[in-house]
């Protein structure tokens, strides 16, 4: 067993960390103040990452991506997680699901995304279908070789800058009565398709400048050639290509927690009250001990889940554990980092109040903590017949 990073991994971590600190940290205050990252600035970030050869690092090398293994990719995203989503999402990691594209779709969707020419977004959630995704109401009716889509999606991250959206839509039902299940199909929908509209979403407390959008379909006509994978097999495509993406949430939580921790640690070592550094008071020092212990635990849990992916081992439960633990850890660590700072921790002169706000969504998106617990316990109980 070897817990050390390879020389390549060390260099990847260093490059990404340096880039994030030098190129992205200076933009944070502006994004937070305005709630926007101007498109031109996003493009500049994209161009710099393209020049680094680090764009689309998750996509296999045969499609022109970085072809990183799961552990190295988790390390890269861990460092990206140090800054806000509004900034780090411009270091694009096109959705892995695009690798399911056929040859013709590959040229129109996957390859331009890898080259930084097009931007993708992914749409599953609806106002009445959150954790219960199969309950979706967005529906496509067959019309010859075309599909007519009606319905609404919401909470669709960064669809405002996307050129196309990967959308999951019901295309019928199978079975009857209690056994009936919706057939879900994955479609590629271009911005500008008649009957398809991308609208501004809600103002969120977390990740200002990283916008969620509402998609509406009003008799939107899509040819069958826009189906990714096969009709009725949308969730199968998603499970094949997307089940590892929860590692992104886990590892970004670890990166951001370390940044919050470093700020708290330095403050504890400098701030004096009652004639000594507050870090010398057990009330503060024990907090630091608990914080770093849970950060390291989340880091190892996450990297070991990624390692299982690289080894081809089952990892669904381990990924859920990492996502659950790391997102709840980030909530505690950012909360305690503020507590160590006292009132100053709540002021926007420091980034801590932002980390604390941003942390809230991590327990909700990409599967709530409750859904992760469900996945974990189901994995344990199912073999026992329960």
């Amino acid at each position, binding site marked *: 067993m070897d817990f050390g990073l390879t020389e390549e991994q060390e*260099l*990847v971590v*260093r490059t990404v960390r340096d*880039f994030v600190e030098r190129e992205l940290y200076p933009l944070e205050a502006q994004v937070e103040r305005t709630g926007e990252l101007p498109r031109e600035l996003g493009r500049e970030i994209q161009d710099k990452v393209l020049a680094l050869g680090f764009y689309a690092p998750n996509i296999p090398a045969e499609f022109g991506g970085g072809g990183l293994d799961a552990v190295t990719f988790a390390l890269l995203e861990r460092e990206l997680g140090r800054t806000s989503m509004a900034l780090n999402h411009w270091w694009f990691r096109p959705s892995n699901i695009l690798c399911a594209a056929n040859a013709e779709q590959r040229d129109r969707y996957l390859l331009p995304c890898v080259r930084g020419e097009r931007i993708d977004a992914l749409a599953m959630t609806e106002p009445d279908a959150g954790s219960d995704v199969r309950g979706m109401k967005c529906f496509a009716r067959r019309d010859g070789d075309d599909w007519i889509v009606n319905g609404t999606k919401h909470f669709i991250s960064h669809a405002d800058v996307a050129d196309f959206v990967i959308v999951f839509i019901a295309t019928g039902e199978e079975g009857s009565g209690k056994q009936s299940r919706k057939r879900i199909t994955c479609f590629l929908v271009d911005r500008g398709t008649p009957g398809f509209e991308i609208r501004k979403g809600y103002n969120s407390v977390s990740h200002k400048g990283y916008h969620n959008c509402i998609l509406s379909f009003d008799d939107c006509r899509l040819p069958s050639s826009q189906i990714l994978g096969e009709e009725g097999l949308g969730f199968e495509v998603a499970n094949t290509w997307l089940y590892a993406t929860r590692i992104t949430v886990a590892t970004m939580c670890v990166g951001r927690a370390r940044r919050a921790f470093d700020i708290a640690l330095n403050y504890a070592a400098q701030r004096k009250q009652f004639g000594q550094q507050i870090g010398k008071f057990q009330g503060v020092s024990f907090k630091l001990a608990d914080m770093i212990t849970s950060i390291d635990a989340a880091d190892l849990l996450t990297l070991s889940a990624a390692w299982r992916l690289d080894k081809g081992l089952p990892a669904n439960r381990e990924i859920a554990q990492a996502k659950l633990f790391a997102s709840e850890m980030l909530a505690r660590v950012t909360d305690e980092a503020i507590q160590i700072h006292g009132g100053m921790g709540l002021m926007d002169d420091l980034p801590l109040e932002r980390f604390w706000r941003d942390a809230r969504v991590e327990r909700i998106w990409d599967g709530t903590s409750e859904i992760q617990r469900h996945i974990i316990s189901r994995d344990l109980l199912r073999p026992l017949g329960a």
Partner: protein
Amino acid sequence: MKILVPVKRVVDYNVKVRVKSDGTGVETNGVKMSMNPFDEIAVEEAVRLKEKGIATEIVAVSLGIPACAETIRTALAMGADRGILVETDVELQPLAVAKLLAAIAAKEQPGLMILGKQAIDDDMSATGQMLAAFLGWPQGTFASQLTFADGGITVKREVDGGMETVALSLPAVITTDLRLNEPRYASLPNIMKARKKPIETLKPADLGVDPTPRLKVLKVVEPAKRKAGVKVADVAELVMKLRTEAKVI
């Protein structure tokens, strides 16, 4: 033209340096180590010269413990072609480093050697100058701009009074100042390629150099803590104190 770039493993510039409790030096155990920032500038300059077609090969050299191979690997990931590690656990001082580098230069016959003007650990700023003396080559230290023409090189130097321009014939020794360039990030393709680039390992004896220290460190202490200043009531008191206490006027 072949360029040799020595790179030193030093305590990372972000780390708050601590003096060892026995006063023999600074703590490096468990401390993050990186390439000396001035050496990064040297590697960057060499890579740019290769991109311009002036250089054909870049050799990164590091001297010291086996972990210095990591520093060479960083240079390879920035674009150097191969590495040489002179392995020794002897504490290396500028004179020994200059001798070792001169021996490597005799073996490799580079057209140019680019060094950092100093290392951020002991700030000696001596190796480049000593190396030029050993080799009998011209030197352009504290360089902030290099221009190649007619088989020679013009170096803009940062000196106390401003900028000085010197013309050197080749081969030559250059040491880099802060404003020569801004080093690039290691790119993903170069990081992956770096693994395949060779690093040759030598011992000081292979180069016929005795690296034994000639200088003895008596004691290393933290800088004295700054004391709080005093407030003066008026200009008259200030002038009086400047005259009688500070003795500057």
